[in-house]
């Protein structure tokens, strides 16, 4: 680990960490990243692993998507993340692609970002000199832009264990059901108090803006209210309003916005049903 950070620091800004390589190698083949030095993190054990620590779930940045799928802590404390990992690319890619890689790549369609946003995750950035924690929401700046500095690595990702009466869900709309890049995706996380009022709501959207984003206004209408059809419909409408999609090969902006509303509503209904029938 120390060596990797030293290498990055030495080669900055021309050093580039390489983990699974599922994005970088493809890009290198078409001539991007010329003149850069790749620092291979593939065999760093310190970057792997999933643990429960002080009320948090902490996962190493180099954890692969396949590992997320196998781990009971993820299944128990990060339902949307688990659902997202299950439809992430294809099994070959899942075996190599890492969580940090997906976040640092900062594609608007990064499939792990919406569930981690919904979980309220933070990321740990380390360099030879310092360590800092940044919320994932702040970390992602724009298309392929993040707060990470050339000498930094994303060492780990963490989130608070969701409270007792909570539920979450994720859904991805692809042009087909497997091995597809998202047309759009959404994740929700809600928690209620004993009276059934919503005390926490997070709604996150993918491939609907230059970066994966939270639909704060949609979340606000749910706060303090019982999770019922009307509020859910309003939240879904606001979430679609928060989306700022573009038209591209996978869909038009208009289609994306329209389907966002359907999906967010569906996820909130699912989550509220899960709360009622745990």
């Amino acid at each position: 680990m120390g060596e990797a950070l030293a290498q990055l620091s030495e080669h900055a800004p021309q050093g580039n960490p390489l983990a699974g390589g599922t994005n970088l190698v493809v890009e290198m083949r078409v001539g991007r990243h010329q003149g850069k030095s790749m620092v291979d993190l593939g065999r760093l054990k310190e970057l792997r692993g999933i643990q429960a620590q002080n009320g948090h779930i902490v996962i190493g940045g180099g954890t692969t998507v396949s590992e997320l799928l196998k781990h009971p802590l993820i299944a128990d404390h990060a339902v949307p993340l688990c659902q997202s990992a299950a439809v992430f690319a294809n099994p070959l890619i899942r075996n190599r692609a890492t969580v940090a890689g997906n976040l640092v790549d900062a594609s608007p369609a990064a499939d792990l970002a919406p569930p981690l946003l919904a979980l309220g995750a933070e990321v740990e950035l380390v360099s030879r000199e310092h360590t800092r924690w940044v919320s994932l929401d702040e970390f992602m700046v724009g298309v392929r832009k993040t707060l990470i500095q050339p000498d930094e690595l994303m060492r780990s990702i963490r989130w608070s264990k969701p409270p007792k009466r909570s539920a979450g869900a994720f859904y991805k709309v692809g042009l087909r059901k497997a091995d597809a890049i998202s047309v759009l995706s959404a994740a929700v996380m809600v928690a209620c108090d004993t009276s059934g009022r919503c005390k926490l709501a997070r709604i996150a959207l993918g491939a609907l803006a230059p970066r994966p984003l939270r639909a704060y206004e949609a979340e606000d209408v749910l706060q303090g209210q019982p999770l019922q059809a009307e509020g859910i419909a309003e939240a879904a409408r606001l979430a679609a309003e928060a989306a700022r999609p573009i038209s591209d090969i996978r869909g038009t902006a208009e289609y994306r916005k329209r389907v966002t509303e359907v999906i967010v509503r569906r996820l909130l209904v699912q989550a509220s049903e899960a709360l009622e029938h745990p």
Partner: protein
Amino acid sequence: MDKSQFNTLGKVTPRKDGVARVTGQETYTVDTILPRMLHGRTVCSPFAHARIKSIDTRLAEAMGAVVLTFQDIPRRRYNERIITVEWALHKDHYVLADKVRRMGEAVAAVAAETEELAEKAARAVVVEYEPLPVVLDPIEAMQPGAEPLYDTVVYGDQEIQIEKNIACAREVNEGDVDKAFAETDVFVEGTFDVHKIYHAQMEPKSVVCRPEPDGGITVWATTQSIHNTRIVLGQIFDIPLSKVNVKRMSVGGTFGSSIQMNSVVPIGVALALKARRPVKLTLTREEDMHDHGRFGTHAHLKLGAKKDGTLTGIELELVADIGAHILQGYSFLGVSIGWIVSLYRLPNVRYKGTCVYTNKAPGCAMQGFGNPQATFAMESLMDELAEKLGMDPVELRLKNYVRLGMTFWGQGPMVRSLIRSDGVPDLLEKGKELIGWDRRQPPGLKSGRFRRGIGLGRGFHTSSAGAPQPGDVIDYSGALVKINQDGSVDVVSALVDHGGGTLEGMAKLVAETLCVPLDMVSVVPTDTGNALYDVCTHASRGTYAGGGAAVRVAKQVRQEICETAARYLNVQPEAIEMKVDQELGQAVIYVPSIPDKQMTLKQLASRCWSESWKTIASMDSYRPVACPPAYVTVFLEVEVDTWTGAVRTLHAALGADCGTVVNPDGAVGQLEGGLSRGMGMALYEDIDWDERGQLRSKGYLVDAKTPGIMESPHLEGLSIHFADTNEPTGPHGAKGMGEAALNPVPAAYANAIYNAIGIRFYQLPITSEKLLAALVERETMLKERLR
């Protein structure tokens, strides 16, 4: 024919190459490694249409690479596929581009010691281009002032002018359409669009070429026809065919993408000849996606019928987008009308078809060769007609379909033969029952978010392009069958198994004919040097025509077995019969009335051997005298989510009449695969180009959207049945299968979606997005009307 008497046909047997394929031990072209072999790379154009002003190879050569440019290649235009007769053949291709006509076209090539060095050298070749306006739309391409792709091409042996980017045109007129239409009660018409679709075959195209000391070449190539590859290479490089040896390789699927000599093959050969060392050249996936695609079609059809549902005639105008090069445009125009008139009796036909050049991937046959496009249009119109007439769609089809005893010319106006087997009524009846046709409701009665619809598409594909007389398409096969010393059998055939289990079928047909256990029959590795000519494994002809050749020759061998055994057993040859003894693992030759007059095939063959007599063997060519239609009907039940536009396949009832079912697992696999590819064509696959002529997917397979297992209906929603028919002209009663499995699927989807929501689509694919937009548009219209 009593099919219950079959020993091998119709039985489920493990595939001979199955273990090798699923354990990664099969060797494909790309696995071929030769001593002193160099690695090749092409220099691909970043423009879709450009003149090449200069090519500077010095940097690449300084790296130690051998560099090939237009200066090095033979100045001879060719067509990559010579299966049409000379007068129907257009030639517009050079080994390397004289002018760039599509994105990624090879303008130069390099060979070097390693793949890495070859890649670096290819990037170091400096090409100066003069970009030209890019022509993408075939209709615009024909307008005055559109940028021409070609000045001239070679047709037969003459140079002809190309005007308005029209590569070729064809008209067919039968009967009197004007008179028929004057007496017609009901018309339906529509303009149907189908985009080019990428084959998405698993194996990217590859070639290895070794120059031989005698001036010849040995070629390992991804291809569906080793003989076509040999003939074209011989013509380009002016080498006698006896010195051009093309090996038959295992192929990782094609869907038709290797029916021609692939574009990489002559480049690899030219590199090897220049380097005087073996060279391997393989396309990347991105390059492959620019290399070939289905023919895009834009078709206007007008169909007439009497009140009682009898069809009166058809008018059809077709524009085919052939892309940057012509492979088989003229045949394509012929079959496009052939498919339609062979689906339904249409005594009066007025047809005009035009092939147009555009700066896109060259059109190459893909599962169905124009048939899925034609069937999509025709079957959509048949449903519209049924609705107008108030007739049941199944009844309308039964009334009009081209059936037993009628003339069939699916392969075009020059390839006509009689229909001798017909399982259509059976398929329609059974399909109705399996899907629950009687519960089908009109769309107007449906409401709510999720709406279900039931739809039907029926179709066929020809088995081969055989006919009583020669046509414009070459079609014949050959085979060699010999008995080994232990009673096992070698079959030599130029047929290629490109995924459908063709060679497996051939082994079964020979085993059946010779009463030999399947395990004792091998279709052995071969090349053009020792296999008789076979046109190509295409047109669903592998089992019917290739298998037909093998059965013809196996029957000759059986005759020789009887005559030879007759001498040893001291009986008349006509008294001898054969049966299989699975316990002995041998064919047994016996005389029914005399129990001690019998011997195994091994005893016979080893005696012929130890007595220095002979090998029992035969070799012959075979031209099928018909190209019988294999019929497939597809009944679907779909569910449309009117909130998202998503379409889910709930039930599929697939029925096939392929004559004798040679390989049940394989036949089921073909139907399931046909459903999947047809679903892709109907709902997902939309290969599209941007204004620069670049694929919008940029060549990434993830956005080519072929459906996967997740899109398939659940197993309990899938039912498959076969009609019990016997094709008298086929080997042991068999017909083709592969392409028929796909042809009616897109139509069945369009009809099922119409039945669900009452909206008809004339353009494929019917993506969720298009479907939702159509629903929204209808909603808005209804609201405005209410206002």
